[in-house]
């Protein structure tokens, strides 16, 4: 595709056609192997279905594409605004990131009813959910990108006697472009998926509605025809953004020179105290925002619980202890899955990116598959994964990995391209072997993007585990949250959301600490703000 191999006519076309053929053959074989199970339809049956139902699918596609498009715009715009706020007012970083993180943590079981009540019938919830599913994966890389500028560019600006504003416009924004493009590429399939899943909140039409209908109706051809359409549209959008990125990004990344000076810092105790104060203040602001949002929209306390409802439920109510015990047991069950799931998703994404760096020929086959995995609702793919790998740890961790690896893959691919051109030339000149080139030049260049991926994978993995629990294991927080639909136990739901949000923030913070420690050694200029 456009990322790794520069498209060279006609070799690239041949390779693309070859990989399409390969995918079709693999798909056909897989369908044969599960024939009669009503879980996967092969390319022939799917083609037939599409030929017969292209009008229906076309209308549904148009509905979903529009919602996804508006969500894509709104979500990415929000991400850009948030990132610019942080870049211009660095003091706001923790608060803005925390709000972004917490909003991203809200599961569909909670947002669905709230959005439907807020918007009524119509595309509002679908668009909002599409936006919600893209903004975080753009915001985090952008935040990193705005810092990942070569030190000598700043020196140049200073040399010319220009101020911070010039540095911002000419250096930071330019340096952030590749990261923005990575974010947009991740956002394309995510927006589509978000719009489809958004239709689960009571939409009348669209591909998500058709998926639900097809799955309940054992209409396996329809399910996979929709999956194919969703994947194709996502691939097109991904490819188009890739082409745009190639035009915008500087052709050869510059060397990120370390300045070697770390800013002076106070004694440890003082820093810890300051950090703690900041964390507490952020938490207080978040709780305030939570309460305010629900009051402003006058949402009913029946399903939109306020902080004091949850306090009562978990602390002062007569059976608060039992509530806490339920929640604690579920959290533990979830935690056991989260760490391996997180590592699997991140490792799979980063590993694939490294593989593609070593063997770019594979890109044509791997990337379409990756995008397909990302743009098909997990409700359609999970039964297949479960059938192949079971409901044990392997199956659930695979579901989590499938749901989370994509942002890591794309971020790392873009990160690997940040290896300085001159350094790579020099190494090629000396016929350094590709592994050494990867280790000494590309890997360090990838680190900032990798850590961006590591951060945003935290809430993504936790959410994915709750989905896997709902779809496959029936344990943990995910199962608790799914029960809300029949029990109306919104206290329990919002308590679970609180746990998910706190857990995500904690994990996010931990990754941040690791990032600082690693970058301090290999890329200190990026810690300068």
């Amino acid at each position, binding site marked *: 595709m456009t990322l790794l191999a520069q498209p060279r006519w006609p070799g690239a076309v041949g390779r693309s056609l070859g990989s399409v053929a390969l995918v079709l053959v693999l798909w056909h074989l897989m369908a044969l192997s599960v024939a009669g199970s009503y879980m996967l339809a092969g390319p022939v049956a799917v083609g037939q279905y599409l030929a017969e139902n292209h009008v229906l699918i076309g209308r549904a596609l148009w509905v979903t594409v529009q919602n996804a498009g508006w969500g894509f715009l709104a979500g990415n715009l929000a991400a850009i605004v948030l990132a610019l706020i942080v870049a211009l007012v660095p003091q706001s970083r923790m608060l803005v990131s925390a709000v972004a993180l917490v909003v991203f943590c809200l599961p569909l079981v909670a947002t669905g*009813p709230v959005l*439907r009540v807020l918007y009524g019938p119509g595309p509002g919830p679908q668009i909002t959910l599409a936006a919600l599913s893209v903004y975080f994966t753009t915001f985090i890389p952008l935040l990193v990108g705005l810092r990942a500028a070569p030190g000598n560019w700043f020196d140049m600006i200073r040399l010319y006697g220009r101020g911070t504003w010039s540095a911002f416009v000419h250096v930071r924004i330019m340096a952030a472009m590749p990261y923005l493009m990575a974010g947009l590429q991740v956002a394309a399939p995510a927006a589509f998926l978000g719009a489809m899943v958004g239709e689960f909140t009571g939409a*009348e039409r669209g591909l998500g*509605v058709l998926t639900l209908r097809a799955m309940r109706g054992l209409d396996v051809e329809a399910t996979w025809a929709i999956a194919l359409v969703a994947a194709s549209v996502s691939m097109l959008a991904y490819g188009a953004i890739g082409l745009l990125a190639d035009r915008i990004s500087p052709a050869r990344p510059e060397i990120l020179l370390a300045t070697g000076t770390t800013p002076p810092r106070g004694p440890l105790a003082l820093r810890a105290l300051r950090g703690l104060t900041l964390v507490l203040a952020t938490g207080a602001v978040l709780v305030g925002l939570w309460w305010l949002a629900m009051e402003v929209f006058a949402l009913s306390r029946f399903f939109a619980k306020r902080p004091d409802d949850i306090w009562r439920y978990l602390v002062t109510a007569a059976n608060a202890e039992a509530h806490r015990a339920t929640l604690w047991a579920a959290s533990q069950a979830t935690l056991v899955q989260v760490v391996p799931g997180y590592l699997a998703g991140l490792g799979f994404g980063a590993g694939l990116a490294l593989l593609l760096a070593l063997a770019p020929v594979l890109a044509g086959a791997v990337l379409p598959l990756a995008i397909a995995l990302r743009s098909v609702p997990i409700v359609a793919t999970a039964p297949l994964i479960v059938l192949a790998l079971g409901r044990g740890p392997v199956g659930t961790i695979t579901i989590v990995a499938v749901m989370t690896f994509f942002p890591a893959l794309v971020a790392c691919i873009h990160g690997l391209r940040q290896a300085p051109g001159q350094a790579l030339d020099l190494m090629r000149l000396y016929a350094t072997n590709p592994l050494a080139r990867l280790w000494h030049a590309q890997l360090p260049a990838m680190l900032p993007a990798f850590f961006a991926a590591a951060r945003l994978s935290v809430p993504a993995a936790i959410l994915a585990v709750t989905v896997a629990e709902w*779809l496959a294991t029936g344990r943990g927080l995910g199962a608790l949250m799914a029960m809300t639909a029949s029990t109306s136990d919104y206290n329990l739901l919002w308590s679970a959301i609180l746990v998910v949000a706190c857990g995500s923030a904690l994990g996010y913070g931990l990754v941040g600490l690791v990032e600082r420690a690693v970058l301090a050694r290999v890329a200190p200029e990026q810690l300068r703000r």
Partner: protein
Amino acid sequence: MTQFDLSRRHLLGMGLGGISAMAFGARGLHAQTTQVALQLSWLHSVQFAGSYIADERGFWADRGLSVRLDAGGPNAPVEPPVVSGTALVGISAADYTAAAVQQGAPFRIIGVAMQNNPFAIASLPANPVNEPKDLEGKRIGMPLANMPVLRTLCTLNGVDIERIEVIPTQYDAAPLVAGEVDCLLCWSTDLPVAMFVRGIESVTMLMADFGYTLHSQTYIATDDSLAGRRADLVALMAGEVQGWEAYRADLDAATDLTLARFPDAGLDRPTQIEQARRQVPLMFSDLTDANGFGWWTDDTVAQNIETLALLGMPVEAALWDRSILEEVHG
């Protein structure tokens, strides 16, 4: 909503009731229509065909009501929009309503569309579940949210639930067909129909035949609406009753109307007509023949209360409020 429907509402809204009255019979000439919404419990399908008939044939318009039919979905619970007032009435189920009331929602059941509970155990003829005892030693696939349902069925029939292996699946017949499970906990009107249409024979054991007495597809409204918007509630329920009677009289017409009204919903006729047939015995009984659609007696409520107690939801008989139906049928 169809274009036709919108334009009709528009006309009514502009006070040109005469045109509408000519088109839909001049039984009631209302200069003003009240806009309300009915929150459905799932995606549009023949499951709600009675409501579509009520809308298309003007059963509501005749009574000065314009009813928006809001689709449901997996992440669109019925209770929040009804609590919020977005919808005047919602289509819930006795157990869902009881749970919501436990959580503080001020609901009353004002009508019962499904006298018999649609929950069933579906299995394949080679390894059938004909009665609850057959469940022992089998693997059952179901969404875990339905655990209380299975537990209650077991309690009612002296089945050892420990001897049933519960596999958490999505609401989908594929695991049964693929042999991953031996049976499914589902509605008798959806997954078995999907298998039937695909030519897969299945055995359906209706839980209502084994003591699981629980009203389903119940109409719910808030105490506030019952106090302040009685006329609207009566008009809405009267339209529903009339619509469902018309549905029963002509299932084909009801199915065709559903298909025509929702061309984008991906509905197919074989599935819809079969579902339409299978829900008739759940919705109509001697009780409704004698008293009218949606009715219940103190006896059926008492049975419901027993089942709900087993489900862990103690409720009072006052959860059911028949005053609206009494006005409709009276």
